[in-house]
């Protein structure tokens, strides 16, 4: 990365490589992430795109959901002198890109990827989504008090994310006296009837799932049609808005006594960032999703890193550790010990109004309340 003194800007620019799945399975999330990111940069630099004289030069690459393409993109950007890489929803790509950043002394700020791999991975690696298991800290709060002797049934996909979730529920809830029964089923499961037969025998008080993508509709449908939700409380995280209606419909009448939680939706807090994000999105004709906030967090972290660290990645990373800031969903905390990023969450109900499904806030939980214990501290 050569410097050019005679440039109009007095200081070196900072190159940020954004890697997202513009094509492939996660293409909607890619747009959201970018929108949130750009909104944050615009808002936090007052539209200049400069921080203390450092111009933020953003390069965007499509990883197509393929780790090989993502890695090549990462090398391309690093080779061009990028000091920060950010983005992507696909865990396989995100981990591979983060690895490249680490090897090359660059900073990495993750996107919506559900992986836990970033926590404690390296000083310069940060998540933004407050991903699992941090996201699950909200669960005991949903379940309420006096959990002794209660039973929770979890149904998840049998792959890394689902397996992590199943473990997390056990670790978190069994000390509170909850009996946790976990079912891990193949991602390709298309018929949940046999599992439901077993769940019925467990006589659960609570049922939850993080099932995403193919099959969740079926899962919810059979929970309802087998009558399991008559006696048990159902809760689950909410993701894309386009899922709200199908989730609501699949649950039938049971939707009214089910609880959902999510990290952001437009207008969740009405704070400055929230307003700014909404304004920016409106101007750009973009419909806000939960992961617009994730992009915002990444943008805010980039701005903060440059403010404090200039172009020095060590200093950038240090500036983020232990830092907290106000995002569209409320205060975000970056823990110094393991770079755990924790975000606020909301519990909500799904309600249908005039054929449109929306959410009604039940409760808000600050990041502080939701911080998970340190499991994988950074090696100093």
């Amino acid at each position, binding site marked *: 990365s050569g410097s050019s003194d005679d440039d109009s800007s007095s200081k070196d620019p900072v190159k940020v490589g954004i890697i997202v799945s513009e094509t492939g399975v996660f293409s909607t999330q890619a747009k959201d992430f970018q929108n949130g990111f750009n909104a944050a940069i615009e808002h936090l630099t007052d539209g200049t795109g400069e921080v203390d004289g450092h111009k933020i030069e953003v390069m965007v690459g499509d990883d197509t959901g393929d780790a090989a393409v993502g890695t090549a993109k990462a090398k391309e950007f690093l080779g061009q002198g990028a000091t920060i890489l950010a983005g992507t929803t696909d865990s396989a790509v995100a981990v591979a890109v983060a690895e490249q950043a680490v090897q090359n002394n660059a900073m990495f700020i993750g996107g919506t990827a559900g992986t836990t791999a970033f926590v404690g991975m390296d000083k310069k690696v940060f998540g933004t989504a407050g991903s699992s298991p941090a996201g699950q800290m909200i669960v005991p709060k949903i379940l309420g008090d006096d959990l002794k002797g209660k039973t929770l049934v979890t149904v998840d996909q049998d792959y890394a994310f689902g397996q992590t979730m199943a473990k997390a529920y056990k670790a978190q809830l069994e000390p509170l006296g909850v009996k946790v029964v976990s079912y891990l089923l193949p991602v390709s499961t298309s018929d949940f009837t*046999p599992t439901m037969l077993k769940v019925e025998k467990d006589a659960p008080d609570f049922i939850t799932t993080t099932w995403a993508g193919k099959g969740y509709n079926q899962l919810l449908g059979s929970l309802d049609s087998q009558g399991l939700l008559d006696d048990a409380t159902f809760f689950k995280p909410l993701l894309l808005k386009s899922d709200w209606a199908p989730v609501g419909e699949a649950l039938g009448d049971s939707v009214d006594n089910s609880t959902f939680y999510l990290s952001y939706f437009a207008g969740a807090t009405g704070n400055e960032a929230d307003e700014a994000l909404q304004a920016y999105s409106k101007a750009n004709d973009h419909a806000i999703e939960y992961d617009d906030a994730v992009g915002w967090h990444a943008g805010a972290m980039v701005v903060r890193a440059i403010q404090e660290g200039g172009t020095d990645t060590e200093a950038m990373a240090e500036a983020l550790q232990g830092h907290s800031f106000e995002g569209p969903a409320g205060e975000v905390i970056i823990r110094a010990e393991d770079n755990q990023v924790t975000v606020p969450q909301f519990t909500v109900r799904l309600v249908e109004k005039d054929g449109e499904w929306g959410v009604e806030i039940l409760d808000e939980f600050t990041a502080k309340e939701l911080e998970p214990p340190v499991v994988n501290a950074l090696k100093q």
Partner: protein
Amino acid sequence: MDTVLVLAFTGLGIGSLYFLLSSGLSLVFGLMNVLSLAHAAFLTVCAYASWLVVRETNGEDPTLGRLLLAIVLATLVGGLIALVTELVLLRPLYSRDHFDIVLVTLGLGFVLTALISGIWGHEERIIPLPDSLTSTTSIFGAPITNDRLMIIAVAVAVFLAIMLFLRHTRHGLIVRAGVENRDMVRALGIDVRHSFTLVFVLGGLLAGAGGALSGVYLRAISPATGEAFLIFAFIVLIIGGLGSVPGAFVAALGIGLIQQFANYYINGGAGDLLAVMLMALTVLVRPQGLFGREGRAV
């Protein structure tokens, strides 16, 4: 007892779906000796077709009538794509190595699947079902969802129809002979082209029905819908015996049942691995499959 019955019916349900998905493959393979790698893509396209029909005819309030209409139209779409494929892509290649046809279907599979994701994206699309299908019927006291019963009934009907077609028309004979020696069939005064087209279109219709019904079964579809079943269709074909429709029927139901019971009594997911193991065992012990004929003549 209830559990066993429910498991048996869900097993038969998924087995019937496997049959619907593999019957077209089996028919086309058995008669034309073409392993259509585009079959999975046909399924997907037809699943989307049924979704479009449901959506366009106001999916807000799904009724059984609309759904049936969607299934019928999707089936026809399957036949239509197959027709075009046969006329444009396959017909010019019959005089060539059979494998070239397999390759063309592979390419076509790429194209169709990519087209679907290009147009409608990768997200899942929901197929809303009427209550009459999502509610259950009690069979010997076990609650069975009606959509399963419908799929089982369709599978049995399709099986019988295929057997009738093979027994009572000359087309099966002509195509089998045509695969061996197309010139000789022509030299007997028979225009083989019609029969080939007909059989391939039948395969397409079956893919259409299969695609639409897998939408019903899964309640949601995505560009990967067809591909996800391909592996099971293959397993069914190998175990049942390549090209034997009764073999595919028995193997499909068998695999469906075994899968459900294994998933319940061993653990979720054991069924998939067990199915592959059964296939390996079949290959070792009886390479021609349950109903396959031993080695073709040399």
